[in-house]
Protein backbone atom coordinates (compact mmCIF):
# COMPACT_ATOMS: atom_id res chain seq x y z
CA UNK A 1 0.00 0.00 0.00
CA UNK A 2 2.74 2.40 0.97
CA UNK A 3 4.56 1.58 -2.24
CA UNK A 4 1.52 2.52 -4.30
CA UNK A 5 1.05 5.82 -2.53
CA UNK A 6 4.71 6.57 -3.01
CA UNK A 7 4.59 5.75 -6.69
CA UNK A 8 1.49 7.86 -7.12
CA UNK A 9 2.94 10.79 -5.26
CA UNK A 10 6.19 10.54 -7.17
CA UNK A 11 4.35 10.39 -10.48
CA UNK A 12 2.19 13.40 -9.74
CA UNK A 13 5.11 15.41 -8.43
CA UNK A 14 7.16 14.57 -11.48
CA UNK A 15 4.39 15.64 -13.80
CA UNK A 16 4.01 18.91 -11.95
CA UNK A 17 7.76 19.41 -12.08
CA UNK A 18 7.78 18.63 -15.79
CA UNK A 19 4.99 21.14 -16.33
CA UNK A 20 6.98 23.73 -14.42
CA UNK A 21 10.01 22.94 -16.54
CA UNK A 22 7.96 23.21 -19.69
CA UNK A 23 6.49 26.54 -18.76
CA UNK A 24 9.27 28.28 -16.93
CA UNK A 25 12.59 26.57 -17.50
CA UNK A 26 12.57 25.83 -21.21
CA UNK A 27 13.35 28.75 -23.47
CA UNK A 28 10.52 30.35 -25.38
CA UNK A 29 10.22 29.19 -28.92
CA UNK A 30 10.96 31.75 -31.59
CA UNK A 31 7.89 31.63 -33.78
CA UNK A 32 5.03 30.24 -31.76
CA UNK A 33 5.82 31.60 -28.35
CA UNK A 34 4.01 30.30 -25.31
CA UNK A 35 1.72 28.14 -27.39
CA UNK A 36 4.58 25.88 -28.36
CA UNK A 37 4.96 24.73 -24.76
CA UNK A 38 2.07 22.36 -25.25
CA UNK A 39 4.52 20.36 -27.36
CA UNK A 40 6.31 19.01 -24.30
CA UNK A 41 3.10 17.68 -22.95
CA UNK A 42 1.64 16.50 -26.24
CA UNK A 43 4.66 14.55 -27.45
CA UNK A 44 5.32 13.03 -24.02
CA UNK A 45 1.73 11.77 -23.97
CA UNK A 46 2.09 10.34 -27.46
CA UNK A 47 5.21 8.42 -26.54
CA UNK A 48 3.73 7.17 -23.27
CA UNK A 49 0.65 6.00 -25.16
CA UNK A 50 2.76 4.09 -27.65
CA UNK A 51 4.77 2.50 -24.86
CA UNK A 52 1.55 1.42 -23.18
CA UNK A 53 0.36 -0.20 -26.41
CA UNK A 54 3.66 -1.99 -26.84
CA UNK A 55 3.40 -3.43 -23.33
CA UNK A 56 -0.19 -4.40 -24.21
CA UNK A 57 1.07 -6.30 -27.25
CA UNK A 58 3.63 -8.14 -25.15
CA UNK A 59 0.96 -8.96 -22.56
CA UNK A 60 -1.34 -10.26 -25.31
CA UNK A 61 1.35 -12.56 -26.65
CA UNK A 62 2.16 -13.79 -23.16
CA UNK A 63 -1.48 -14.51 -22.43
CA UNK A 64 -1.95 -16.59 -25.57
CA UNK A 65 1.16 -18.52 -24.69
CA UNK A 66 0.84 -18.94 -20.92
CA UNK A 67 -2.88 -18.43 -20.32
CA UNK A 68 -2.31 -16.74 -16.98
CA UNK A 69 -4.93 -14.19 -15.95
CA UNK A 70 -2.35 -11.63 -14.92
CA UNK A 71 -1.40 -11.08 -18.54
CA UNK A 72 -5.00 -10.37 -19.38
CA UNK A 73 -5.19 -7.85 -16.55
CA UNK A 74 -2.00 -6.22 -17.76
CA UNK A 75 -3.26 -6.14 -21.33
CA UNK A 76 -6.52 -4.38 -20.56
CA UNK A 77 -4.80 -1.95 -18.20
CA UNK A 78 -2.26 -0.95 -20.83
CA UNK A 79 -4.92 -0.71 -23.51
CA UNK A 80 -7.06 1.61 -21.42
CA UNK A 81 -4.18 3.78 -20.31
CA UNK A 82 -2.78 3.88 -23.83
CA UNK A 83 -6.17 4.88 -25.19
CA UNK A 84 -6.47 7.59 -22.57
CA UNK A 85 -3.08 9.05 -23.48
CA UNK A 86 -3.88 8.83 -27.18
CA UNK A 87 -7.16 10.63 -26.60
CA UNK A 88 -5.22 13.42 -24.94
CA UNK A 89 -2.85 13.52 -27.92
CA UNK A 90 -5.72 13.71 -30.40
CA UNK A 91 -7.35 16.53 -28.47
CA UNK A 92 -4.26 18.54 -27.58
CA UNK A 93 -2.97 18.43 -31.14
CA UNK A 94 -5.82 20.39 -32.70
CA UNK A 95 -5.90 22.77 -29.74
CA UNK A 96 -2.34 23.67 -30.58
CA UNK A 97 -2.65 23.46 -34.33
CA UNK A 98 -5.51 25.90 -34.75
CA UNK A 99 -3.84 29.00 -33.33
CA UNK A 100 -0.43 27.90 -34.62
CA UNK A 101 -1.27 26.83 -38.15
CA UNK A 102 -4.84 27.94 -38.65
CA UNK A 103 -6.16 24.40 -39.08
CA UNK A 104 -7.43 21.87 -36.56
CA UNK A 105 -6.40 18.79 -38.44
CA UNK A 106 -4.46 17.44 -41.35
CA UNK A 107 -4.41 13.96 -42.72
CA UNK A 108 -0.69 13.36 -42.54
CA UNK A 109 0.91 10.03 -41.67
CA UNK A 110 1.37 10.58 -37.98
CA UNK A 111 -2.04 12.01 -37.24
CA UNK A 112 -3.99 9.55 -39.33
CA UNK A 113 -2.09 6.57 -37.94
CA UNK A 114 -2.71 7.85 -34.43
CA UNK A 115 -6.40 8.14 -35.17
CA UNK A 116 -6.56 4.60 -36.54
CA UNK A 117 -4.53 3.32 -33.60
CA UNK A 118 -7.03 4.96 -31.30
CA UNK A 119 -9.95 3.42 -33.20
CA UNK A 120 -8.38 -0.03 -33.06
CA UNK A 121 -7.91 0.06 -29.30
CA UNK A 122 -11.38 1.46 -28.76
CA UNK A 123 -12.57 -1.59 -30.70
CA UNK A 124 -10.41 -3.77 -28.46
CA UNK A 125 -12.11 -2.32 -25.38
CA UNK A 126 -15.53 -2.66 -26.97
CA UNK A 127 -14.84 -6.29 -27.84
CA UNK A 128 -14.10 -6.96 -24.19
CA UNK A 129 -17.50 -5.67 -23.12
CA UNK A 130 -19.19 -8.01 -25.58
CA UNK A 131 -17.71 -11.30 -24.38
CA UNK A 132 -18.95 -12.38 -21.00
CA UNK A 133 -17.01 -15.46 -20.10
CA UNK A 134 -13.66 -14.32 -18.65
CA UNK A 135 -11.31 -16.87 -20.24
CA UNK A 136 -12.91 -16.46 -23.65
CA UNK A 137 -12.80 -12.69 -23.32
CA UNK A 138 -9.15 -12.76 -22.40
CA UNK A 139 -8.21 -15.02 -25.32
CA UNK A 140 -10.26 -13.23 -27.98
CA UNK A 141 -9.16 -9.77 -26.98
CA UNK A 142 -5.53 -10.89 -26.79
CA UNK A 143 -5.79 -12.26 -30.33
CA UNK A 144 -7.46 -9.12 -31.62
CA UNK A 145 -4.86 -7.04 -29.80
CA UNK A 146 -2.14 -8.93 -31.64
CA UNK A 147 -3.75 -8.41 -35.04
CA UNK A 148 -4.38 -4.75 -34.28
CA UNK A 149 -0.83 -4.09 -33.19
CA UNK A 150 0.81 -5.68 -36.21
CA UNK A 151 -1.51 -3.60 -38.36
CA UNK A 152 -0.29 -0.32 -36.93
CA UNK A 153 3.07 -0.13 -38.72
CA UNK A 154 1.33 -1.17 -41.94
CA UNK A 155 -1.18 1.66 -41.52
CA UNK A 156 1.61 4.10 -40.86
CA UNK A 157 3.52 2.91 -43.91
CA UNK A 158 0.50 3.15 -46.18
CA UNK A 159 -0.38 6.66 -45.15
CA UNK A 160 3.16 7.91 -45.19
CA UNK A 161 3.68 6.62 -48.70
CA UNK A 162 0.50 7.86 -50.24
CA UNK A 163 -1.17 10.49 -48.15
CA UNK A 164 1.66 12.81 -47.18
CA UNK A 165 2.51 14.04 -50.63
CA UNK A 166 0.90 17.44 -50.55
CA UNK A 167 2.72 19.99 -48.43
CA UNK A 168 1.41 19.75 -44.92
CA UNK A 169 2.42 21.88 -42.00
CA UNK A 170 5.16 20.14 -40.10
CA UNK A 171 3.29 19.80 -36.86
CA UNK A 172 6.05 18.59 -34.68
CA UNK A 173 9.20 18.19 -36.77
CA UNK A 174 11.00 15.22 -35.18
CA UNK A 175 11.71 15.66 -31.54
CA UNK A 176 15.39 15.97 -32.21
CA UNK A 177 15.23 17.97 -35.37
CA UNK A 178 15.37 21.66 -34.87
CA UNK A 179 14.94 21.42 -31.14
CA UNK A 180 17.14 23.94 -29.44
CA UNK A 181 19.60 22.56 -26.90
CA UNK A 182 17.86 24.49 -24.16
CA UNK A 183 14.64 22.67 -24.80
CA UNK A 184 15.99 19.17 -24.53
CA UNK A 185 16.21 18.80 -20.78
CA UNK A 186 12.63 19.95 -20.31
CA UNK A 187 11.52 17.71 -23.12
CA UNK A 188 13.17 14.53 -21.90
CA UNK A 189 12.17 15.27 -18.35
CA UNK A 190 8.60 15.51 -19.56
CA UNK A 191 8.84 12.21 -21.39
CA UNK A 192 10.22 10.46 -18.33
CA UNK A 193 7.63 12.03 -16.06
CA UNK A 194 4.82 10.94 -18.36
CA UNK A 195 6.16 7.41 -18.51
CA UNK A 196 6.26 7.19 -14.74
CA UNK A 197 2.75 8.58 -14.60
CA UNK A 198 1.74 6.00 -17.19
CA UNK A 199 3.27 3.25 -15.08
CA UNK A 200 1.38 4.46 -12.04
CA UNK A 201 -1.90 4.48 -13.94
CA UNK A 202 -1.30 1.01 -15.34
CA UNK A 203 -0.49 -0.48 -11.94
CA UNK A 204 -3.57 1.11 -10.39
CA UNK A 205 -5.75 -0.17 -13.21
CA UNK A 206 -4.12 -3.59 -12.88
CA UNK A 207 -4.96 -3.82 -9.17
CA UNK A 208 -8.47 -2.68 -9.95
CA UNK A 209 -8.85 -5.41 -12.55
CA UNK A 210 -7.44 -8.03 -10.22
CA UNK A 211 -9.84 -7.02 -7.47
CA UNK A 212 -12.75 -6.94 -9.89
CA UNK A 213 -11.89 -10.43 -11.08
CA UNK A 214 -11.65 -11.74 -7.52
CA UNK A 215 -14.99 -10.20 -6.59
CA UNK A 216 -16.66 -11.63 -9.66
CA UNK A 217 -15.40 -15.08 -8.78
CA UNK A 218 -16.66 -14.76 -5.21
CA UNK A 219 -20.00 -13.51 -6.42
CA UNK A 220 -20.45 -16.41 -8.81
CA UNK A 221 -19.43 -18.90 -6.18
CA UNK A 222 -21.93 -17.41 -3.77
CA UNK A 223 -24.67 -17.56 -6.37
CA UNK A 224 -23.89 -21.14 -7.22
CA UNK A 225 -24.20 -22.38 -3.65
Amino acid at each position, binding site marked *: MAKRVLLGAAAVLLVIAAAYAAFFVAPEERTMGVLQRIFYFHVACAWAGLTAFMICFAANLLYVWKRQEKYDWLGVSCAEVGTAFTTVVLISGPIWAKPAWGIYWTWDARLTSTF*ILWLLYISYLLLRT*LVEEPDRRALLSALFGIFAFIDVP*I*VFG*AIRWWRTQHPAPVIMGGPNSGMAAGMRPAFYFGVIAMHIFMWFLISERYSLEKTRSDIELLRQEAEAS
Partner: protein
Amino acid sequence: MGLLSNAAALLGKEVRTEFRSRELMSTTTVFVLIVVVLFSFTFDPTTDESHRFGPGLLWLAFLFAASLMLQPCFLREQVNDTLSALRLAVRDPFAIFLAKIGANTLFLLFTELLMLPVFAALFNASFRGQLPGILLTFFLGSLGISTAGTALAAISAQSRMRELLLPLLLLPLLAPILVASTEVTVGLMSPDPFMQWKGIGFLAVFDVVFLTALWLFGEYLLEE
Protein backbone atom coordinates in the same frame (compact mmCIF):
# COMPACT_ATOMS: atom_id res chain seq x y z
CA MET B 1 -4.88 -35.70 -45.51
CA GLY B 2 -2.46 -32.82 -45.99
CA LEU B 3 -3.13 -29.19 -45.23
CA LEU B 4 -3.63 -28.16 -48.83
CA SER B 5 -5.81 -31.07 -49.83
CA ASN B 6 -8.00 -30.54 -46.77
CA ALA B 7 -8.27 -26.85 -47.59
CA ALA B 8 -9.11 -27.68 -51.20
CA ALA B 9 -11.84 -30.12 -50.14
CA LEU B 10 -13.36 -27.55 -47.80
CA LEU B 11 -13.06 -24.80 -50.37
CA GLY B 12 -14.84 -27.00 -52.86
CA LYS B 13 -17.69 -27.55 -50.47
CA GLU B 14 -18.02 -23.84 -49.64
CA VAL B 15 -18.11 -22.88 -53.29
CA ARG B 16 -20.53 -25.65 -54.22
CA THR B 17 -22.85 -24.66 -51.38
CA GLU B 18 -22.76 -21.03 -52.38
CA PHE B 19 -23.40 -21.73 -56.03
CA ARG B 20 -26.40 -23.76 -55.09
CA SER B 21 -28.12 -20.95 -53.22
CA ARG B 22 -26.17 -17.93 -54.48
CA GLU B 23 -27.49 -16.00 -51.51
CA LEU B 24 -24.20 -14.50 -50.35
CA MET B 25 -23.08 -13.27 -53.73
CA SER B 26 -26.40 -11.93 -54.85
CA THR B 27 -26.96 -9.92 -51.70
CA THR B 28 -23.38 -8.66 -51.68
CA THR B 29 -23.53 -7.56 -55.31
CA VAL B 30 -26.78 -5.69 -54.78
CA PHE B 31 -25.36 -4.06 -51.68
CA VAL B 32 -22.30 -2.80 -53.54
CA LEU B 33 -24.57 -1.47 -56.28
CA ILE B 34 -26.69 0.40 -53.76
CA VAL B 35 -23.65 1.91 -52.08
CA VAL B 36 -22.12 3.00 -55.39
CA VAL B 37 -25.38 4.59 -56.51
CA LEU B 38 -25.78 6.42 -53.20
CA PHE B 39 -22.21 7.63 -53.39
CA SER B 40 -22.95 9.10 -56.77
CA PHE B 41 -25.55 11.32 -55.11
CA THR B 42 -22.91 12.87 -52.90
CA PHE B 43 -21.08 14.48 -55.78
CA ASP B 44 -21.49 14.89 -59.51
CA PRO B 45 -19.96 11.75 -60.99
CA THR B 46 -19.48 13.03 -64.47
CA THR B 47 -16.75 15.55 -63.90
CA ASP B 48 -13.04 14.82 -63.96
CA GLU B 49 -13.07 14.67 -60.19
CA SER B 50 -14.84 11.36 -60.41
CA HIS B 51 -11.63 9.86 -61.76
CA ARG B 52 -9.98 10.81 -58.51
CA PHE B 53 -12.79 9.92 -56.14
CA GLY B 54 -14.36 7.07 -58.02
CA PRO B 55 -11.90 4.28 -57.25
CA GLY B 56 -11.85 5.23 -53.58
CA LEU B 57 -15.60 5.02 -53.39
CA LEU B 58 -15.57 1.73 -55.22
CA TRP B 59 -13.14 0.20 -52.76
CA LEU B 60 -15.04 1.67 -49.84
CA ALA B 61 -18.17 -0.01 -51.19
CA PHE B 62 -16.26 -3.31 -51.46
CA LEU B 63 -15.06 -2.93 -47.88
CA PHE B 64 -18.53 -2.28 -46.51
CA ALA B 65 -19.93 -5.16 -48.50
CA ALA B 66 -17.21 -7.48 -47.30
CA SER B 67 -17.79 -6.61 -43.66
CA LEU B 68 -21.35 -7.82 -44.12
CA MET B 69 -20.59 -10.75 -46.38
CA LEU B 70 -18.03 -12.20 -43.99
CA GLN B 71 -20.50 -12.50 -41.12
CA PRO B 72 -22.00 -15.88 -42.04
CA CYS B 73 -18.55 -17.34 -42.52
CA PHE B 74 -18.40 -18.79 -39.02
CA LEU B 75 -21.97 -18.19 -37.96
CA ARG B 76 -23.15 -20.86 -40.36
CA GLU B 77 -20.79 -23.34 -38.73
CA GLN B 78 -22.44 -22.69 -35.38
CA VAL B 79 -25.92 -23.78 -36.51
CA ASN B 80 -25.35 -27.52 -36.15
CA ASP B 81 -21.90 -27.24 -34.62
CA THR B 82 -20.34 -28.29 -37.90
CA LEU B 83 -17.27 -26.38 -36.81
CA SER B 84 -16.57 -29.13 -34.30
CA ALA B 85 -16.95 -31.72 -37.03
CA LEU B 86 -14.44 -29.82 -39.16
CA ARG B 87 -12.01 -29.50 -36.29
CA LEU B 88 -12.23 -33.23 -35.70
CA ALA B 89 -11.77 -34.09 -39.35
CA VAL B 90 -8.76 -31.94 -40.24
CA ARG B 91 -5.35 -32.31 -38.69
CA ASP B 92 -4.30 -28.69 -39.10
CA PRO B 93 -6.97 -26.09 -38.24
CA PHE B 94 -5.26 -23.65 -40.58
CA ALA B 95 -6.86 -25.66 -43.40
CA ILE B 96 -10.25 -24.40 -42.25
CA PHE B 97 -9.03 -20.82 -42.44
CA LEU B 98 -7.32 -21.26 -45.79
CA ALA B 99 -10.48 -22.70 -47.26
CA LYS B 100 -12.71 -19.94 -45.93
CA ILE B 101 -10.26 -17.25 -46.99
CA GLY B 102 -10.14 -18.79 -50.44
CA ALA B 103 -13.91 -18.97 -50.66
CA ASN B 104 -14.42 -15.43 -49.41
CA THR B 105 -11.80 -14.10 -51.81
CA LEU B 106 -13.54 -15.82 -54.71
CA PHE B 107 -16.94 -14.47 -53.72
CA LEU B 108 -15.57 -10.96 -53.28
CA LEU B 109 -13.74 -11.13 -56.61
CA PHE B 110 -16.87 -12.29 -58.34
CA THR B 111 -18.82 -9.36 -56.96
CA GLU B 112 -16.06 -6.90 -57.79
CA LEU B 113 -15.68 -8.06 -61.38
CA LEU B 114 -19.44 -7.94 -61.82
CA MET B 115 -19.46 -4.39 -60.54
CA LEU B 116 -16.58 -3.22 -62.70
CA PRO B 117 -18.49 -2.58 -65.94
CA VAL B 118 -21.36 -1.06 -63.98
CA PHE B 119 -18.98 1.27 -62.24
CA ALA B 120 -17.26 2.13 -65.50
CA ALA B 121 -20.58 3.01 -67.06
CA LEU B 122 -21.88 5.06 -64.13
CA PHE B 123 -18.69 7.03 -63.70
CA ASN B 124 -17.68 7.24 -67.36
CA ALA B 125 -14.44 5.53 -66.53
CA SER B 126 -12.46 3.34 -68.80
CA PHE B 127 -10.19 0.43 -68.06
CA ARG B 128 -8.99 0.10 -71.59
CA GLY B 129 -6.46 -2.67 -71.75
CA GLN B 130 -5.84 -2.58 -68.04
CA LEU B 131 -7.69 -5.76 -67.23
CA PRO B 132 -4.67 -7.79 -66.07
CA GLY B 133 -3.64 -5.00 -63.73
CA ILE B 134 -7.18 -4.65 -62.44
CA LEU B 135 -7.43 -8.38 -61.86
CA LEU B 136 -4.19 -8.43 -59.92
CA THR B 137 -5.21 -5.48 -57.78
CA PHE B 138 -8.66 -6.83 -57.08
CA PHE B 139 -7.21 -10.23 -56.24
CA LEU B 140 -4.57 -8.98 -53.81
CA GLY B 141 -6.96 -6.50 -52.23
CA SER B 142 -9.71 -9.06 -51.83
CA LEU B 143 -7.25 -11.57 -50.43
CA GLY B 144 -6.23 -9.05 -47.78
CA ILE B 145 -9.84 -8.23 -46.95
CA SER B 146 -10.72 -11.92 -46.70
CA THR B 147 -7.71 -12.84 -44.59
CA ALA B 148 -8.26 -10.18 -41.96
CA GLY B 149 -12.02 -10.53 -42.30
CA THR B 150 -12.10 -14.29 -41.80
CA ALA B 151 -9.89 -14.02 -38.72
CA LEU B 152 -12.07 -11.32 -37.21
CA ALA B 153 -15.24 -13.16 -38.17
CA ALA B 154 -14.01 -16.05 -36.04
CA ILE B 155 -13.66 -13.60 -33.16
CA SER B 156 -16.95 -11.79 -33.61
CA ALA B 157 -18.88 -15.06 -33.99
CA GLN B 158 -18.09 -15.74 -30.34
CA SER B 159 -19.28 -12.44 -28.97
CA ARG B 160 -22.53 -10.53 -28.57
CA MET B 161 -23.69 -7.96 -31.11
CA ARG B 162 -21.68 -9.81 -33.66
CA GLU B 163 -23.29 -8.14 -36.66
CA LEU B 164 -22.12 -4.75 -35.51
CA LEU B 165 -18.86 -5.93 -34.07
CA LEU B 166 -17.35 -7.34 -37.23
CA PRO B 167 -17.44 -4.06 -39.22
CA LEU B 168 -16.19 -2.25 -36.13
CA LEU B 169 -13.16 -4.48 -35.80
CA LEU B 170 -12.52 -4.92 -39.49
CA LEU B 171 -12.79 -1.49 -41.06
CA PRO B 172 -10.00 0.27 -39.14
CA LEU B 173 -7.78 -2.76 -39.62
CA LEU B 174 -8.26 -2.64 -43.37
CA ALA B 175 -7.34 1.02 -43.74
CA PRO B 176 -4.05 0.14 -45.48
CA ILE B 177 -5.87 -2.01 -48.06
CA LEU B 178 -8.20 0.84 -48.77
CA VAL B 179 -5.37 3.28 -49.34
CA ALA B 180 -3.15 1.01 -51.42
CA SER B 181 -5.90 -0.52 -53.56
CA THR B 182 -7.39 2.88 -54.28
CA GLU B 183 -4.05 4.29 -55.33
CA VAL B 184 -3.31 1.46 -57.73
CA THR B 185 -6.82 1.59 -59.19
CA VAL B 186 -6.55 5.36 -59.69
CA GLY B 187 -3.37 4.78 -61.64
CA LEU B 188 -5.06 2.17 -63.81
CA MET B 189 -8.07 4.36 -64.43
CA SER B 190 -6.30 7.57 -65.28
CA PRO B 191 -6.27 8.93 -68.87
CA ASP B 192 -2.65 7.82 -69.09
CA PRO B 193 -2.89 4.49 -67.28
CA PHE B 194 0.08 3.17 -65.34
CA MET B 195 0.70 0.34 -62.93
CA GLN B 196 1.80 1.34 -59.49
CA TRP B 197 3.96 -1.58 -58.49
CA LYS B 198 4.67 -0.07 -55.10
CA GLY B 199 1.00 -0.47 -54.27
CA ILE B 200 0.90 -4.03 -55.52
CA GLY B 201 3.94 -4.88 -53.44
CA PHE B 202 2.33 -3.28 -50.44
CA LEU B 203 -0.86 -5.29 -50.84
CA ALA B 204 1.19 -8.44 -51.17
CA VAL B 205 3.05 -7.62 -47.96
CA PHE B 206 -0.23 -7.06 -46.10
CA ASP B 207 -1.54 -10.39 -47.34
CA VAL B 208 1.60 -12.24 -46.33
CA VAL B 209 1.75 -10.64 -42.88
CA PHE B 210 -1.84 -11.47 -42.02
CA LEU B 211 -1.77 -14.95 -43.50
CA THR B 212 1.31 -15.63 -41.39
CA ALA B 213 -0.34 -14.22 -38.28
CA LEU B 214 -3.36 -16.42 -38.92
CA TRP B 215 -1.16 -19.43 -39.47
CA LEU B 216 0.50 -18.79 -36.12
CA PHE B 217 -2.59 -17.99 -34.11
CA GLY B 218 -5.49 -19.50 -36.04
CA GLU B 219 -5.96 -22.56 -33.88
CA TYR B 220 -6.50 -20.36 -30.83
CA LEU B 221 -9.28 -18.53 -32.63
CA LEU B 222 -11.20 -21.80 -32.92
CA GLU B 223 -10.38 -23.05 -29.48
CA GLU B 224 -13.01 -23.81 -26.88
